[in-house]
């Protein structure tokens, strides 16, 4: 399978382990990624309330992807939402499309924007992936965390149930780990309040940790760099703010399934996570495929 690839700014920065593990897992799944040339920021959460600007910035990336003739895969839930929303508007809103075609000097016919989780679960498929999971993660208990923009709003890029999504649950189970029920699976991490209202953001995040621990989780599995930024990147700050110890490893789903595929810790850049997953890896029962 060949796909155009839009990493987005964070995957070339704070979420570099998501970029590395995405590439490694796609390679192992026979997906050939072609990064679109000279892509720009989608406007992220900072322009998400400025609808036209967000869609305008995203429209340029869609136009670049269109040149490849391939479907576009995006690992970041925010970028994926923004580019999908822009594609929808470019197809349905003639005056917006006219503005953007003028700004970009090119005609837009429409592309397919897909989140990486959607591609892996629905196109590659759980069965095919299962045959590649040569090192099942027996011994690990995980909670799936979908967050917001991966599943909401469902009118944009829908591939799972917005109230009770299960694609990540199924993937975790297929990888041999135990997937625990998680009451917070689609709750907000507080990402968009991190800079302006940090105390609120950390209450959101703390609640996720509390519930994950109450469920008995050894780790939280995510599919969005913003969720990861709050849960992993800011975990020490949440500990400080709430005067507590959390110590919860947070893996990108690509890192988790990459381990089950037998990919190396180096390829998956597990050393780049801020909270060390070393103790989590110790829990894996070797030769666990029974």
């Amino acid at each position, binding site marked *: 399978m060949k796909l155009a690839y839009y990493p987005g700014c964070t995957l070339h920065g704070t979420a570099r382990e998501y970029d590395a593990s995405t590439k490694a897992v796609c390679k192992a799944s026979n997906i050939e990624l072609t990064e679109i040339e000279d892509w720009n920021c989608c406007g992220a959460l900072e322009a998400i309330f400025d609808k036209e600007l967000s869609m305008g910035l995203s429209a*340029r990336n869609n136009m670049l992807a269109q040149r490849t003739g391939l479907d576009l895969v995006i690992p970041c839930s925010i970028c994926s939402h923004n580019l999908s929303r822009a594609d929808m508007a470019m197809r349905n809103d003639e005056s917006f499309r006219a503005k953007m075609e003028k700004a970009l000097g090119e005609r837009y016919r429409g592309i397919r924007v897909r989140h990486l989780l959607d591609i892996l679960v629905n196109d590659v498929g759980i069965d095919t992936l299962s045959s590649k999971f040569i090192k099942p993660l027996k011994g690990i208990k995980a909670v799936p965390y979908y967050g917001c923009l991966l599943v909401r709003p469902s009118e944009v890029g829908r591939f799972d149930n917005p109230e009770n999504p299960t694609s990540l649950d199924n993937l975790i189970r297929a990888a041999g780990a135990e997937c625990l029920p998680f009451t917070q699976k689609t709750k907000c991490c507080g990402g968009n309040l991190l800079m302006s209202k940090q105390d609120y953001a950390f209450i959101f995040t703390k609640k996720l940790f509390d519930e994950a621990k109450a469920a008995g989780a050894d780790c939280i599995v995510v599919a969005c760099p913003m969720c990861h930024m709050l849960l992993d990147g800011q975990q020490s700050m949440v500990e400080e703010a709430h005067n507590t110890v959390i110590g919860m490893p947070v893996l990108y789903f690509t890192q988790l399934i990459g381990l089950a595929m037998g990919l190396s810790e180096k390829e998956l850049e597990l050393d780049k996570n801020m909270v060390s997953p070393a103790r989590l890896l110790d829990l894996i029962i070797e030769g666990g495929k029974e």
Partner: protein
Amino acid sequence: MIKTSQLDSNFKYEIANEPGGENIKRCFNCTGCTVGCPVTEIDKGYNPRKIIRKALLGMRDEVLSDDSIWLCASCYLCYERCPQDVKITEVMGAIRAIAQREAKAGNIKLDNPKPLFDNLFINSVRKNGKWHEAGVSGMFTLKTKGIKGLIDYIPMGLELFRKGKVSILPHKIKGKDQIKRIFEEVER
């Protein structure tokens, strides 16, 4: 108490004219947005139903200078669940846009730091095509927390740098002229 003489009956049309604000008049005030809202859960003062009700009544000044319009976390739960498809998250964006214009014109004062961060971010994208994390976050921290805030952030910054997660210099794209034209089109 609401003084009808001070209401601006045009406000709802003003919001409906902003991108994202089109569906505000559909709201029938059912409170579905508010009961599930994660911000309301921790701050009872945050009430999206009330914000929309006030906007529909025409309480323009009160809505635009209300700090709580900057608290929406864009989680899209209300957007998903709204039975009238008001698109509340985007309506919040439309209200924020009007508030920012009024603040720029000197008519109201915005105390919340959210628009400051968003504007630093957006200007970084305007300039380079991508956002410069170290520059934007550094400038925001300096402006809101001063030198001490910046110093407090050094250990985290160094750790990120050591892991190769932040770059000192901004990344610039080649198609900056296209970015400039996009901004011109949407700001027209």
